[in-house]
């Protein structure tokens, strides 16, 4: 099998798996799960072979042509793609395994695994695509698989609503993305990433800030940046492994990947915007996470916040003034991708840990109705703790290295941004401490948490493996030369800078941890913030009114506007104009009937008049 065939088959195998399950094994749940896991294993093995065999390829097939306009199905596998592929294949495989336990009793298990396979297919497409059209196609397809998987419990109205919202909000982002693609096509006369990069290199002035911002809309939707983040917390209605795979580790990270893949199309003016959107999202997400009580929603807002970190890191590259802009952008990419990888591991770990807890507590998701779980679920507790420490950036764990790379970049370039990101880190430590203490310590608060038992190895083994990755993913030996294209670009602080950045990082971490501990206490029964500072709590839990604005728009603007147009359509066009015209015709015919008197003389006069009129008309025309 040639390398090209291998790459194509990595795309095709999950698709076939979804198709086969959908057509033949809808009711054969065990077979469906086996097929899907087999497909995930093929993807994992094939990917590892590609990545560590250092195989890098670019090729394409023609799909459709009109005159000069050609769409091709193209593949472009470089170090950047290899890095994301590694995360997708490993996390994807582990989550397939975990799902085997989590979805054991689910009546829609076959449908669920078909959805997972469809997602793997779509994600593979994004990883490999070499042109914007193909990226867009798979971009929408991950949106579709996300829609199907969020909607897994379709009989729950909340799940159905959340799925719809996710799809429509993402489409809003894709609206900008598609405009950007069409504009790029006429601007660069090609949509092939390779060719566009060459054009930009030859003539950097060709860049247009509008194109850059429109293409950024893609990440705005998929990666949950303000103001299109509203779908992500709602998407937690889906099964927890789905949240781990799609809404934490891979799909939402695809926005960052896309930005890194097309960085050369984004001029510095647009980068500044992107950076501030990312920073705003980072602090916003962490503020919202503080008041949530649903364990998955806390993690969802934390994801939004961390994605903001990555976007800010990407945008930061632009701030190195003049001259050496090229390498600065690369540094931004390096930092963003590094954080994407470590975050992919530890956030998947946290979500799966939450899934393990939820599974053991009979689908209890409120952290104030758990408690004391550390004794009952030791493996989950240990793994979750590793995840928490990695997320808050404990020195020695993966999150520390990647977060420090971003903080260092900010320190070098923009002190305001540095402050925001440091504050985000503090808040992150604060809300994660709250979650950790409430869920795992103190006394069990409900029967479900009292009876909780550790899950079997099918669910704990993926946790352990992800915990290991969450520790080691930050070290250099995890990033051998095959990822050099990206990992070489990760900025490293040296000497005094290192001491300062690491010092600040550790200081905010400790501050957040201690503040969280002191404020919430161990095993709290209720939210102290809500009791003692209801005003602040109310303000934060309103989540800056984004959701209210959307709801208001849908109910009061969109609905009314379409009803109004419908009314106009019915009454004015269909009623007044058309029936009015019919009435006019009727009136005319009444008049015409009056002219037909039955008197021969009158008819002769009419004929004469007609002839004169005709003569005049002919004369006039000529």
């Amino acid at each position: 099998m040639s390398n090209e065939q291998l790459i194509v088959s990595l795309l095709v195998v999950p698709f076939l798996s979804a198709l086969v399950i959908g057509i033949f094994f809808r009711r054969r749940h065990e077979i469906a799960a086996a097929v899907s896991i087999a497909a995930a294993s093929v993807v994992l093995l094939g990917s590892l072979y590609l990545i560590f065999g250092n195989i890098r390829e670019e090729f394409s097939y023609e799909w459709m042509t009109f005159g000069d306009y050609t769409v091709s199905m193209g593949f472009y596998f470089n170090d950047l793609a290899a890095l994301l592929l590694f995360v997708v294949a490993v996390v994807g495989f582990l989550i397939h395994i975990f799902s085997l336990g989590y979805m054991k009793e689910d009546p829609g298990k076959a449908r669920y695994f078909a959805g997972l396979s469809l997602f793997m297919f779509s994600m593979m497409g994004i990883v490999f695509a070499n042109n914007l059209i193909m990226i867009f196609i798979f971009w929408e397809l991950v949106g579709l698989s996300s829609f199907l998987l969020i909607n897994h419990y379709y009989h729950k109205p909340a799940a159905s609503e959340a799925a719809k919202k996710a799809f429509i909000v993402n489409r809003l982002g894709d609206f900008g993305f598609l405009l950007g693609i069409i504009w790029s096509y006429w601007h660069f006369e090609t949509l092939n990433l390779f060719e566009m990069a060459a054009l930009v290199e030859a003539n950097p002035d060709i860049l247009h800030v509008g194109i850059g911002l429109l293409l950024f809309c893609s990440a705005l939707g998929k990666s949950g940046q303000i103001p299109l983040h509203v779908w992500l917390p709602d998407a937690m209605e889906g099964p927890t492994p789905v949240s781990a795979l799609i809404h934490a580790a891979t799909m939402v990270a695809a926005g960052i990947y896309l930005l890194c893949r097309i960085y050369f199309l984004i001029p510095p003016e647009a980068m500044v915007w992107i950076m501030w959107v990312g920073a705003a999202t980072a602090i916003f997400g962490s503020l919202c996470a503080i008041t949530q009580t649903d364990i998955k929603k806390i993690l969802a807002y934390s994801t939004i916040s961390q994605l903001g970190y990555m976007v800010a890191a990407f945008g930061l590259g632009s701030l190195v003034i003049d001259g050496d802009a090229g390498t600065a952008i690369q540094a931004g990419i390096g930092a963003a991708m590094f954080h994407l990888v470590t975050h992919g591991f530890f956030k998947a770990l946290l979500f799966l840990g939450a899934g393990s807890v939820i599974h053991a507590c009979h689908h209890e998701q409120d952290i104030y109705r758990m408690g004391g779980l550390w004794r009952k679920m030791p493996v989950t507790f240990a793994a979750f703790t590793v995840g928490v420490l990695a997320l808050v950036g404990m020195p020695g764990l993966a999150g520390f290295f990647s977060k420090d790379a971003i903080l260092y970049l900010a320190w070098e370039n923009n002190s305001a941004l540095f402050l925001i990101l440091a504050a985000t880190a503090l808040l992150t430590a604060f809300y994660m401490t709250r979650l950790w203490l409430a869920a795992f310590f103190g006394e069990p608060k409900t029967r479900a948490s009292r009876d909780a038992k550790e899950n079997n190895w099918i669910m704990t083994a993926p946790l352990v493996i992800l915990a290991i990755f969450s520790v080691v993913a930050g070290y250099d030996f995890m990033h051998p030369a095959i990822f050099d294209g990206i990992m070489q670009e990760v900025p490293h602080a040296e000497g005094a800078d290192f001491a300062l950045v690491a010092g600040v990082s550790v200081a905010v971490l400790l501050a957040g941890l201690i503040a969280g501990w002191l404020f919430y206490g161990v095993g709290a029964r209720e939210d102290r913030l809500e009791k003692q500072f209801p005003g602040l709590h109310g303000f934060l839990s309103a989540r800056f009114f984004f959701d209210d604005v959307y709801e208001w728009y849908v109910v009061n603007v969109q609905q009314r506007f379409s009803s109004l147009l419908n009314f106009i359509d019915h009454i004015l066009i269909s009623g007044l104009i058309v029936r009015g015209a019919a009435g006019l015709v009727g009136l005319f015919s009444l008049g015409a009937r009056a002219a037909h008197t039955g008197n021969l003389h009158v008819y002769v006069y009419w004929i004469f008049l007609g002839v004169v009129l005709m003569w005049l008309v002919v004369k006039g025309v000529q």
Partner: protein
Amino acid sequence: MPESYPFLLHLAIFIPMLFGTILLLFSGSLGEAFVRRIAFVGFLVPAAVALWLWIAFSPDPVTGYAFLSTVPTGLEIVDISLKLGLNGISLPLFVLAGVVGFAAGFYALVSGAERLRQYLALLLIMQGGLMGVFASVDVFFFYFFHEIALIPTFVMIGIWGGRERHYAAMKLTVYLSLGALLSLAGLIALYVQSGASSFDIISLKAALEGESISEVAQNYTFALLLFGFGILVSLWPFHTWAALGYGAAPTSAAMLHAGVLKKFGLYGLIQIGAPLLPQGAENWMYFLALLALGNVIIIGFVTVAQRDLKQMIGFSSVMHMGYCFLGLACLSAVGVGGAVILMFAHGLTVALLFLLGNCIYRRTETFDMREMGGLARNTPVLAAFFVTAMLASIGLPGPGLANFWGELTVFIGLWQYREWMVIPAVFGVVISAVYGLRAVGNIFFGEPTEAFQSASKGKRIPDIQWHERTPALVLLVVLILVGLWPRSLTDSIDESVSPMYRIVVPGEEASVTGDDGEFEAVSFERAEGPVSCCSPPKRGPAGGL
């Protein structure tokens, strides 16, 4: 046996017509089983022929047509001949007519309609007419076959229709007859002014290549064609017949009309109007594009407001016609090519949606989406079909949903025509996601509403049955085939469209050369768009898009 292909073409047209006539004339004396069998064959033959000819298609490089043949009719003395053949534009629509006709016919066979013989007979006649429309090279017969297909529609709505059928049938008749009349006037004017000695498109084109019609005459003639055909394709604001008519029409008739017959107008403009009256087309296109944006945006929002499933499908079909018109308005190979793909894909999806909508109705006994809910629990396969069809309809790019190719290509072409128009056009994609997903959610997800629960109490709701599944699968398979491998259609479309429409000429302002005051706004709008940022691509080797 290439010589036998023209004969196949004749079979596809005349077998259904013949069988239909037999059923009408001898309806009393034929047994039920025989009627079903003969009708099935009548629907199968055009579909089989269409698929075969699709594979065998290789056009003559000079005329661009394949399978040309002339049948003597005796009308040659008035320059009319029954000349049949297919080119790259008519081939997709011919295939569409065959496939949708088979699905609609199959569904009619199992529908258990009252007076089944007459119903099938009318459908068969309509089917023959449809095959004839797209196989006619002669403008007269192109029109004649359209009338043959149209008249049964009126009758079917009037007799087998749902509520408001009489009003709907009347309105449909008035509108469509008016549209047909205007376009007939336009076609005759075109023939008279061309100075050709034949009604067939190839000779008309040859005659006009020598000396073209004066611009003023082109303007008037094209206006007749535009509004005549436009009414037939539910161009905004002449669309109000559509949702009403489809709402009242029996399912198979709605499938055939919305899926295939409606494309007649667009096909006429693309195949005849715009290439033969290039200046008239240029002058009217900006106006057409504005109306088409009305289809996309205004009707898009109107669709969001619909509560009745069938009305919603009807309005969404009106909306998508807007994209086809926008593609035509570009008058470029890319835009028109996109319009043709979209016509093909939309024909399949809208027929599928009407079919599945009726399957839903049989289970819920209502078309009101507010009274449905949670149907997926009982009918998972029906849900899967409907979700697929709806996602295809709203242009989800996907493993094999062909609509996206059409929309994307139209957008690409449109940018080159008027940049600003792409923004509302692409926004339509968001609007369609809103109504599409809302419909899916209301019908299949969530809890069943109380009304629905009490209505269906004690009854087991069956999933989609084989007789419903077969026609749906036929439509879906063709859609996915083209979606996965668009070149199976686009190569032949490109071959036909490229010589007829401009490709992209460097430096040429893709705008109107009208000296008429009415069109001065055009150049103004042009200047306002973000032109400066964007130079039109040069003609050259294909970029690796």
